[in-house]
């Protein structure tokens, strides 16, 4: 057995590996890890076949169809085109209006940091250890957060809830359908992969440095990640050995469960996607190499204020970059902002640029956030149109979350997550008029029947 430096997780692995010994006698029951113990109970809301006609349609995969039609049946996009010859229960004449896929925010803390922002609601950041890969943010989500309703009014149909960024490993994310529900499972996006939140830079070193424990520096951050991945590699190996031995008919004891290492080894298996809070060019580059050192993909970089400095590197390595148009200056690693960051990342071949919010207010206006990028970039020599820019908040976001086969574009077979806008969504005056999730109308600006209210706001005056 390998020698480890003393750490809690290393001790756990040592015990686990010790427990995997062979003994005499017949085989016991095979132990396996339940990967989905809190399954989705999401059911689409009542729906009818719906035909939207005569709209300016942005499909989310780069196309624009003028005077286009979108046909939804049984919760799926059935057809998109011009002058569709189909029958529908509901037909919406969208003359002068625009249609896009449902908007996806890859970075939200709704439910985990809900409104009102009182002390009892601070459930997003388990700031008690540099490695809290054991925590799952879905266990913190308060479905009654009024912010979910406000986000739906802005066209948000899918959102990833992330734990905060105090820790090197913050815990598991969860992807939700933005439907009103009174349980988290009722919102949980079926079959969406889990994410693992990691954080670079100032936050972890500040939080733990002030407690006098590792990490207190950026080099401490890197050492912390590497130690954890070494433990995860050993844990994964112990389980693989157990399964191989068991399958060979040996009477072996299963390794001891460790929910921190369950999550990390699932990343190594490729089942959980990395979502990495990481601002600075040099740190993102090192995180890419860290993934290569331990054999996992470094996933999506969130808040990458300096992503524009390494646009080539991100594209070469298949990393998405989820970025703000203009947040800056709140800390040192956010000082080198450029308003064209998203556009510069996007301009490289095989790139994956995303506009994200990390905000309970701007999540309501991701269309406007994308508009800021598009117009400022075009002012400075770029040539980006609406059909392309919408990808930053639809298909590219879906790719980052591992749900691109299900949502993010208006194409036949995808879930009918659709927004009808009263005008060009890249205008400051645009509003989402109707929002559909899986073909069901979940919001209508002109019909109070489709305007959900959270339990918390009910009866307040």
């Amino acid at each position, binding site marked *: 057995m390998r020698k480890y430096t003393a750490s809690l997780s290393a001790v756990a692995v040592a015990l686990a590996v010790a427990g995997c010994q062979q003994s005499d006698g017949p085989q016991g029951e095979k132990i396996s890890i339940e990967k989905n113990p809190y399954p989705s109970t999401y059911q689409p809301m009542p729906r009818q076949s719906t035909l939207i006609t005569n709209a300016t349609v942005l499909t989310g995969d780069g196309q624009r169809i003028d005077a286009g039609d979108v046909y939804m049946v049984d919760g799926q996009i059935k057809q998109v085109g011009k002058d569709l010859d189909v029958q529908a229960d509901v037909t919406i004449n969208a003359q002068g209006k625009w249609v896009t896929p449902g908007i996806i925010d890859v970075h939200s803390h709704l439910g985990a940091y809900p*409104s*009102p*922002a*009182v002390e009892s609601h601070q459930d997003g950041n388990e700031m008690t250890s540099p490695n809290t890969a054991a925590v799952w943010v879905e266990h913190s989500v308060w479905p009654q957060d*009024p*912010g979910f309703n*406000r986000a739906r009014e802005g066209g948000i149909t899918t959102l990833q809830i992330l734990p905060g960024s105090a820790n090197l490993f913050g815990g598991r994310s969860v992807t939700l359908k933005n439907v009103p529900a009174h349980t988290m499972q009722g919102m949980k996006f079926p079959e969406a992969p889990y994410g693992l939140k990691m954080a670079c830079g*100032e936050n972890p070193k500040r939080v733990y440095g002030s407690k006098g424990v590792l990490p207190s520096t950026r080099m401490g951050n890197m050492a912390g990640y590497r130690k954890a991945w070494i433990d995860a590699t050993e844990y994964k190996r112990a389980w693989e050995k157990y399964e191989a031995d068991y399958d060979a008919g040996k009477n072996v004891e299963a390794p001891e469960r460790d929910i921190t290492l369950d999550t990390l080894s699932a990343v190594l298996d490729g089942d959980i996607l990395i979502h990495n809070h990481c601002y600075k060019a040099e740190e993102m580059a090192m995180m890419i190499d860290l993934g290569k050192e331990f054999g996992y993909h470094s996933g999506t970089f969130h808040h990458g204020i300096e992503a*524009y*400095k390494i646009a080539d590197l991100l594209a070469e390595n298949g990393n998405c970059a989820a970025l703000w148009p*203009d*947040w*800056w*200056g*709140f*800390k*040192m690693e*956010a*000082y*080198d*902002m*450029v*308003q*064209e960051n998203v556009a*510069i990342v996007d301009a490289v071949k095989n790139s994956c640029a995303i506009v994200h919010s990390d905000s*309970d*207010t701007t999540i*309501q*206006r991701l269309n*406007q956030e994308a*508009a*800021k990028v*598009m*117009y400022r970039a075009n*002012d*400075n*020599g770029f040539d980006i149109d609406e059909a392309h820019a919408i990808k930053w908040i639809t298909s590219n976001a879906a790719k980052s979350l591992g749900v691109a086969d299900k949502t993010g574009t208006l194409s036949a077979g995808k879930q009918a997550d659709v927004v009808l806008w009263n005008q060009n969504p*890249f*205008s*400051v*005056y*645009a*509003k989402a008029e109707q929002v559909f999730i899986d073909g069901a109308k979940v919001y209508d600006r002109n019909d109070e029947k489709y305007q959900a209210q959270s339990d*918390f*706001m009910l009866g*307040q005056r």
Partner: protein
Amino acid sequence: MMNLFKLTAISAAFVMSTQTYAESLAITNATVYTAAQQGVLKDATVVIESGNIVAVNPSEVSADTIIDAEDKILTPGFIGSLNGLGLVEVSAVADSRDGGDKKATMTFDPSLAFNPRSSLIPYARKGGITSNVIAPYGGDDIFAGLASLVSLSGEFDSVTRQGVALHVKLGAKHEGSRALSLQTLIDTLEKHSERDEDDDKSKGKEAEILDAVFAKEIPLVIDVSRASDMLELLKVKARFDVDMVFAGAQDAVLITEQLADSDTPVVISAMDNLPGSFDSMHAHLENAAKLEQAGVTVILTIAGDSAHNLYQLRFDAGNAVSYGMTAQGALAAITSNVASAFNLDVGQIAPGKPADLVLWSADPFEFSTRIEKVWINGTEVSTQSRHDKLRERYTTDSEMPRAYTK
């Protein structure tokens, strides 16, 4: 004109003119949003001399320089309010913060620490901001200190007027009761109103500030969100006959009549629409419009880190319009209403006003609209910032490392 951004040599980006033009300038053929009684003037001319507007639509135009605005929109420069622009560089870098102090009291004047060379200032100019009411965030005391008017010229004489308001923090408290804060305010005003003016002991900086408050030279600007708190403050306002401005004011929409009747302006964020606390259960995107319709003087400001995000003010105004505010009302909310609430000379296109002007490619509230030109005190200023230099560096091909691209 269309390619102003591209044609502006990047090397000139940081060159700020230090001279004040004695020459005259006329901007002709503009659609002028005056933010004054004249409203919108089509095909209008604005004449500037020695940094001031001297004529709007004169019968005859004569000036050293004439700029044809080609029907584009000319507005007063926008005015930010109640933020730490020039008092903070990087929020999490303690050494770069000067907007508050644990020991701050009524006399705390952060304008003494104002840095006109902050990188935030050229960036804010990109949003058409030409002046700003900086405000302290204070310390333990209910009095946070004095707000001041600054220009965004970037010059060392940028503090235009010190002490334009006395800033007070009321409402929800993490410890203790808001009742005590309100009582402290009442006691302070009561004590001042009853003092013997001939008694030397009652003189001093605090007394001078309160004299200005009682003379209505400066308002009390009060951070308050809950409607019942604002109603209590309106009693205080009536009793002591002082001017008040409510900032935050998420639940002002519940008491529009009382605010209008008492002529009390509110400083709000157009984007506040979540119940962030039990003091702000009625935050809504339609609040700006509802307050405007009720006759309340509305000032729009940016929520949160408004020092770094101030350039977005025009987009917030656009959102307010999309939720029912009139376009001219939203313009007033970031120009003339700020001026009237804080007794400032800026914020309108009218003879005698400083020539703080912005020429826009189209509707100033739209994302697609560009800034064509900005003047502060009649001098054209740059709308380039270090952000543009960074973009240029990383989008310019070079065989040498990026560090050599300047």
